[in-house]
């Protein structure tokens, strides 16, 4: 998983290269993060507008990589992490993908978007805590 843009844009290339060279299913969380990937990979994200509703968080695919909005999606996933969730949206897709894997490596970009006012670090810390409580082994690489 790649969550959020690196705090130093000079690290974008190394972070993306490292992530793309990983083996296994890939997930990108975050709109700005997605834009950075699009720039580096010279590819455009295909967003599934038809599945979006006013209450649903958007998702798409960059090539075959699943891409979602970042902090709000992860926050909502935290809220339903240990419960049934059957709404057909980005959160369910993300939940299902995480459930399939025991080892999850997270490239964590530490840049903060000051505009939206969401505590990204708190959301991420809670997510990692829930991963561990569910028996998974998260490995975190900070950028």
């Amino acid at each position, binding site marked *: 998983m790649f969550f959020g843009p690196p705090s130093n844009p000079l690290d974008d290339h190394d972070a993306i290269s490292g992530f793309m060279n990983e083996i296994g299913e890939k997930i990108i969380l*975050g*709109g*700005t993060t997605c*834009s950075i990937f699009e720039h580096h990979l010279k590819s455009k994200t295909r967003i599934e507008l038809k599945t979006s509703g*006013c209450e649903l968080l*958007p998702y798409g695919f960059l090539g075959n990589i699943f891409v979602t909005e970042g902090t*709000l999606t992860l926050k909502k996933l935290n809220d339903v992490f240990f419960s049934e969730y059957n709404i057909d949206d980005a959160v369910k897709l993300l939940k299902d993908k995480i459930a399939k894997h025991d080892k999850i490596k997270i490239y964590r970009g530490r840049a903060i978007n000051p505009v939206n006012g969401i505590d990204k670090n708190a959301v991420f810390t809670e997510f990692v805590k829930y991963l561990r409580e569910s028996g998974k082994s998260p490995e975190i690489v900070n950028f």
Partner: protein
Amino acid sequence: MVELTVCIGTSCHLRGAEKVIKTFQRLITSNRLEKKINLQGTFCMGKCSGKKVQVSINSEAYETCPEEAEGFFLTEVLNTAK
């Protein structure tokens, strides 16, 4: 073909991007413009500090909000699509 793009990143999502998209989808259908307007989303237009939802028409930047989306479509988008 008019390329109508709506930002659905976090900041624009919080400002009502999904409602703007629903309004545009409804107006495209009711005006039978499916072959003239290609509505798409993007995760970030790099203008998170804007006041409203970021939109582009053929790569030209605009902004709107759920309350103004219909008026925006009927003026800016339809003018471009003519």
